[in-house]
């Protein structure tokens, strides 16, 4: 069970208080009525579902109620940081972390992830 730092409550809280809310930093087009079908598909339907570093939204639904953003490594499940909604995409804190995530991303096979013991 994840432990999530709420940037509004300024505290780590149990995953039980939160709800995941999809990929972050997808802004609703201001001129949405005028965009093309392709642009609409890109905005509404298509998601990257990246392995490794992911920016995603969470809501502290059973806490302060706020939506916020998180940078999470989907391989290790580690949260690298969380920050308030409305802030631009934040760089992840350290270069080592970025490198570690990049390395993890090369692990692709089930055998490699499940079977390998160094």
């Amino acid at each position, binding site marked *: 069970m994840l432990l999530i730092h709420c940037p509004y409550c300024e505290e780590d809280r149990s995953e039980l208080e939160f709800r995941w809310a999809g990929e972050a930093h997808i802004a609703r087009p201001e001129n949405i009525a005028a965009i093309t079908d392709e642009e609409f598909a890109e905005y509404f339907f298509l998601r990257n579902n990246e392995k490794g570093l992911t920016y995603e939204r969470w*809501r502290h639904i059973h806490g302060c*109620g706020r939506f916020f953003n998180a940078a999470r490594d989907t391989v290790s499940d580690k949260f690298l940081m969380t920050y308030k*909604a409305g802030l631009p995409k934040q760089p992840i804190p350290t270069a080592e972390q970025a490198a570690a995530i990049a390395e993890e991303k090369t692990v692709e096979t089930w055998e490699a992830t*499940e*079977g390998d013991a160094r």
Partner: protein
Amino acid sequence: MSASSKDLGAFRIKGAGRHTPARTARFTFDGKSYTAMEGDTVASALLAHGVHVVGRSFKYHRPRGILSAGPEEPNALLDVSRDAGRRQPNVRATVQEVFDGVKIASQNRWPSLKYDIGAFNDLLSPFFAAGFYYKTFMWPKEAWHKLYEPFIRRAAGLGEAPREEDPDHYANRYAHCDVLIAGAGVAGLTAALSAAATGASVFLVDEQPEVGGAMHFDAAATIDGVNGYEWAQKTAARLKAMPNVTVLTRTTVFGYYNHGFVGLVERVTDHVARPGRDLPRERLWQVRAKRVVLATGSIERHMVFANNDRPGIMLASAARTFLNHHGVAVGKKVGVYTAHDSAYEAAFDLKRAGVSIAAIVDCRNHPGDAVLAEARALGIDVLTGHSVVNTSGRLRVSSMSVVRNGGSNARKVAVDSLIVSAGWTPSVHLFSQSRGKLRFDEQNQRFLPDIYAQDCVSIGACNGTDNLSDLIDEAIAAGGGALALSGENRFEWTGGMIGAAEGAGPDHVVKAFVDFQHDVTAKDIRLAVREGMHSIEHIKRFTTNGMASDQGKLSNMHGLAIAAEMLGRPIPKVGLTTFRAPYTPVTYGTLVGHSRGDLFDPARKTPMHALEAAEGAEFEDVGNWKRAWYFPKRGEDMHAAVNRECRTVREAAGVFDASTLGKIEVVGPDAAQFLNLLYTNAWDTLKPGKCRYGIMTREDGFVYDDGVVGRLAEDRFHVTTTTGGAPRVLHHMEDYLQTEFPHLKVWLTSTTEQWAVIAVQGPKAREIIQPFVEGLDISNEAFPHMSVAECKVMGVPARLFRMSFTGELGFEVNVPADYGPAVWKAIWERAEGMGACLYGTETMHVLRAEKGYIIVGQDTDGTVTPDDAGLGWAVSKKKADFVGIRGLKRPDLIRDGRKQLVGLVTNRPSDMLEEGAQIVADPNQPKPMTMLGHVTSSYWSENCGRSIAMALVADGRARIGQTLYVPMSDRTIAVEVTDMVFFDKEGGRIHG
């Protein structure tokens, strides 16, 4: 020949062990009565009475005994019961403590433990080789249901599941700590002392009844000059007295999950003869630890040789535990077969206790010098460079066959017990569960923690640190404090092996068991490799090695070594299978915890629930809500009650509890602007005091929810949602407000439960509520359809809506929830006198269908646009933006031929359609037929005197007047497509 009540067993050794002789407990095993000492496990108590055979093996039904003295036990799985309702199969005899009156039974045998018909399987063993179930049951196909499946079901699984409801209760507790220490052996206790000294909050957890870990068997080690076990007990007492330390015994750390989340199961009453009623049987602890210290020790391995599974053959450390802790000798003439020094110490302890040691057979040429010297000094015969290659004895080992390594002349040595050790496997299970990576220690042939994934540290034997002095230093450092403590082992241990021993190699056709619980032999693992399984994960599944409930705590390393040898690859290249939670089996009761009966799920009741129940209401579940479904009078079935309710509402009036409808108060200067963005309709044109029906779409243009919205003031709206949709609609609105439109000054508050809502519908509705309403003219002129006002009802501040989901003159009276029952009572008393009825959700559904009002989620399914539903009029053409504006213009949403909501009437009025039934144009076309749509709602309409239905039909509105067909399994029903209004097509009644 029942033993006398004071007979503690012929194998008890006076003066040995740590139990109190005066405290005894009676128990039965397979119906026979025995006396144990308090503190005995079932295993130690049975061994005290010389009972070694306790079960039959899973596949071959071979007699099996007790292999270990701890939770790693793969063999001695028993059925344990307190009474008829409290029975549990597959309990490890080495874990279950004896209490007075406990009934123990062996498993997997028929008709008896000693004579078991299933043992025939042992003779047929060639047919039960690895992977047999993938091959044997392939054909003929017809045999599957009649023959194979019943056979497999009977044979599969040990033990018999209890049939009665579990009468015990189970508790749950969330907890937090700075440091959680798994394992209270010397390492864990020392780390706890060290951490506690820093002021940290500490959880110290151990699965055994007492702390001490390896000190249970190791009677020779000392700490600060004191016997290790005694030091452990004193230390635990000290720790328990500290306010920042929680010591939990009989508690297993079964799972180590993300972010320091650790699952513990505490066994509270399974060892108590008469537990208090308020005690839970088990307690689940869900602990969030900032740091985890793993002090889980190591587990001794057995030797893999021919017929190594006979009762009486057990781990050397187990024999030591039975002797030093329980005061029980495992035999009178004990053989020792080992690849490791530790077994020597078992022999020393047994010898000193007066047990005869037949010989120590050591497959190594060079045991440790110190143990060898001590053995010689004690006069024990040591055969180095020798191996045990076979055993005999039907229900208990009676001899071991010893050969010089490489030789062929076996010598039979009579024994009544054979203790074995192939060395020790560090318990890295929890480390691996935490996603840590292991490394292979080539020299000692073991996997050890390498790269940590969490804030965690392994100490002691699970980290490969066996020397007591080093271990204590490591533990002090792990605790983060400073401590002066010293410890000493009697002997430094050397040796160890993994894989098959002498005489059980690839050239030998023998049963040398690797996995006792699943009857997997060395031969099976080799067969798997020969048949093409090259991944350890495939080998595991093909042979089932390590897949039993013990998860291969003894077998995994042996299996890996045998596979690696066959594959010709080094062990680290073959790799370990993944360790998964739980470490040992956890009962369903513990995982379920409090979530049983009334607490399984909240049952939400409206303020008027009790009054409705008193009027005879039947209730239906809508989400978590209990809603009054219909109100049968004496002798009425549901059909009759609903018909009467439907008629009465239209002829006089009906009173309905609408409290469950979701309500959201939207407040702020930008409230109208916000609603403009969230609904398809326009809201800035709605005047205070008026309401409007609104449609909410998602960005993709599909209907998401609907409801009536009332404007109470310029900056205050009372929004209603569907009952089931309330939480997700609020979430959806908050999402847009917080992340897309944060500039708007508007706030959302759920008020679903603030208001009790009493709907009064029907021609007499106004007359019914008139006398209760204060300060408001509710005449048709002053308060027309779709009006809202704040007023007083019976002196209580209320919100009154003039609205209708029935097509009749209607009002919805909102009063603060606590006043709901009183107001309901008064209104109903008057209404009843005027010929009205109470009605429930079923009548509500019929009446709305008669008027063609949709129910989102029933007549729509997430692929229906407002226009599909015939609600295109509710989509504003003037607004520059709203959620869904772009989605609605997608090519697929504006194309011809979309499914549209229409009415259906059957050609024969009495024919009823089934909801979900498919609709076709030509019933005689070949299958699969082209389906035009399906029935979404279908009811008997008493008011229309016929059945009515709603359906989603391709191009539906263009088909009005056409005849279509609904093919059912037994007949085809012809239907005519109509519009959706079946009653009062002119719509005059609503303005009455």
